[in-house]
């Protein structure tokens, strides 16, 4: 049964590809469209990888959407001074927000759901202020950064580094241990508070990177940039087989395959001609369905 559960996301991926290929008469897998899907998937997968570290501990990070907005705004604002400042500033913004999230959770003992939801609100407000309720264009020279090679190498680097840290170091193992049983992990010597802050720091850092990638692709930072991105990430992760409870069955593969699935799904819906408003509704239903199918009701009482 466990083995079967592990391959369900892969089956889902194949089903999505087959379904939309059929519905679009093969347009889904055309070269032009694959490039579109890739663009969408890069940001989604990197965002998902960051949140994986948080979810492994059984916590949530819902601040992503606004973090994407504010880090993009920071990138665009500072790019106007020197283009070289844009990437570091976006990442620093992400790290700072991650530290705040992690600290509020670990040391002030506020549930992660509440902390990151509040931060989501606050950052959206700041994004609107930073963009003067409009948008900040990026210097023309920077648009050349939006090329396949750069994005592909960033994506591969992030995947490899994250996979290594998550699977082969005490960092990843400690984080999953917290998800499996926080008290027991502590009693086995896991520095729980430090790990919690670290997880949000990683999540924030990668989201900052996403903010930069996004602003480079669209050419401007907008006050609405990243709206509902946090829910896209959550949906993608659950589709990819990530347990909401975290723990030892939380796998990094979920981030990659889930991100890919949602990118395909969103793109496919556009191709088929489903209205944007309806797309959100469909995503919501899919999210609910994925949670229903993957939720381990028996083990949930054992967790928190």
């Amino acid at each position, binding site marked *: 049964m466990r083995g079967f559960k592990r391959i369900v996301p892969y089956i889902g991926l194949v089903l999505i590809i087959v379904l939309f290929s059929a519905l679009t008469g093969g347009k889904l897998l055309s070269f032009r469209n694959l490039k579109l899907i890739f663009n969408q998937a890069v940001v989604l997968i990197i965002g998902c990888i960051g949140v994986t570290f948080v979810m492994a501990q059984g916590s949530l990070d819902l601040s992503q959407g606004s973090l994407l907005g504010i880090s993009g705004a920071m990138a665009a604002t500072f790019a106007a001074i020197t283009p070289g400042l844009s990437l570091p500033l976006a990442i620093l913004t992400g790290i700072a927000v991650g530290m705040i999230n992690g600290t509020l959770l670990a040391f002030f003992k506020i549930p992660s759901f509440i902390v990151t939801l509040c931060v989501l609100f606050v950052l959206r407000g700041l994004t609107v202020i930073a963009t003067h309720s409009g948008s900040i264009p990026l210097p023309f020279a920077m648009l050349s950064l939006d090329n396949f090679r750069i994005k592909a190498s960033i994506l591969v680097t992030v995947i490899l580094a994250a996979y290594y840290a998550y699977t*082969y*170091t*005490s960092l990843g*193992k*400690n984080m*999953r*241990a917290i*998800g*499996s*049983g926080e*008290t*027991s*992990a*502590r*009693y*086995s*010597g*896991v*520095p729980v508070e430090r790990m919690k802050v670290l997880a949000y720091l990683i999540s924030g850092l990668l989201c900052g990177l996403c903010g930069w990638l996004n602003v480079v692709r669209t050419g401007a930072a907008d006050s609405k940039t990243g709206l509902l991105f946090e829910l896209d990430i959550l949906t993608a992760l659950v589709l990819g087989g990530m347990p909401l*409870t975290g*723990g*030892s*069955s939380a796998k990094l593969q979920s981030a990659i395959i889930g991100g890919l699935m949602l990118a395909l799904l969103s793109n496919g819906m556009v191709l088929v001609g489903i209205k944007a408003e309806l797309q959100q509704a469909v995503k919501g239903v899919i999210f609910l369905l994925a949670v229903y199918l993957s939720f381990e009701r*028996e*083990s949930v009482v*054992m*967790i928190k």
Partner: protein
Amino acid sequence: MSLLRVENIDKTFVTTRALKNAAIIVEEGEIRGLVGENGSGKSTLVSIVSGIIRPDGGRMFKNETAYAPESVLDAGREKIGIVVQEMGTIDGLTVAANLFLGEERLFKRFGLLNTANMNRRSLEVLHRYGIVNIQPDADIGALTFEDRKLVEFAKALYIDPDLLIVDETTTALSHHGREILFSELKRLKKKKRSVIFISHDLGEVIEHCDSVTVMKDGETVDTVSTRGLNEHDLKELMVGRELQHTYYREDTEASYEEEVILRVENLTLNGAYYDVSFELHRGEILGIGGLTNCGMHLLGKTLFGLKPATSGSVEVSDGNKRITNYVDAIAGGIGYLPKNRDQEGLMLLSSIRENICLPSLSSIQKRGFISPSKERKLAQYGAEQLSIKMSSINQLCLYLSGGNKQKVALSKWLVKDSDILILDCPTRGIDVAVKASIYGLMQELKKEGKAVLVISEELQELIGVSDRIIVLKAGRVKKIFERRKDLTEEEIIHFMI
């Protein structure tokens, strides 16, 4: 004619077989004891009889007619009542509302609940059973655990049950509460009603029951009359073979090296323990005993750096390091087996491998890289050392038996090669075979020159394994006993209470 006849009941939870062919016959006017080790299936059996859960197979008869309750209310209609082991009352309601839960229609008029009437009836009911200190309109959440249990008891009694089931309740009751309980049981018996009484206090069972049914591993193995029965015989029935005392140490004198490995000075945690000082030596098994709330469990947590002391110090001799947090404690060579195995000792949703390796990750990593094969070897070694029964080291701990869980929890410190082991109730809720292997292990550690600190509520165990026993009373060291041949429980109890 038997009042209750239960035949061939089976029940499986996920993968654990809780009941196998369980059977019990209770006669009219009989007080029946039900005993067995933890996990032997007592609570499951009575939960089925009282309709809380449903069996997978088997049949039940009440007064020789088929009986298959779908809920507690069903059972109540058949006049079978239960006082459960856990909390059986509902917070946020008054005493009266709890008492008449499900029976509100008795006090309803035109859809409105006549609370005054209900309170009046509640007071009558409570007084009938000699419970005079509880007000019907009080919020039940404000009552002590004992008073809540008494309310439950009254609730089970007022339906005038043919069969009353009392599941391990007496430990929550004071002397006064027990008096009420036992006098009511006697009254039921006089009225030709029956009782099933579950308790771990075998003396109590023998004194108050007519006969006793023994359960083991989900089976009802025997039913005997309590006339002329003694506790020792009953224990033997419970473990299924003759009790051997040999699993304790055979030597009768204290022996340990001179080298001090852990030094505790004037340790105080306000509200828990005060001014505790002692030295733990290499090759010593040091016992700490006392009543549950004497502060010894919190003391164990402080020694491992989990619960900061108000004043005083804990020092490991290796480099004279002071222990103030758990990371330092582990680095200083201390391992800790908590009392609460499932919440504190193990990550149930992780594999045996992950549990065993967790504290040792820092020592098997090489420049940050943890090799999966090294991890596997370490876990395999640990699991084999304690002969953990498992399908593989990748099995989740969730589905292990209590004894095997305890072995995993212990194994992580053994593979870490900890010099000092703090074991809080190491044999709580585990069977005799695993108990024996844990005692054996403690002696091996002693031989290797490690030090073991055992915190236990079982005096027999402390006497059996310790070189010295520190007795705590209300958080203060009352006496330190050296190991000797004629040390008795009575002698120690004297300093505990």
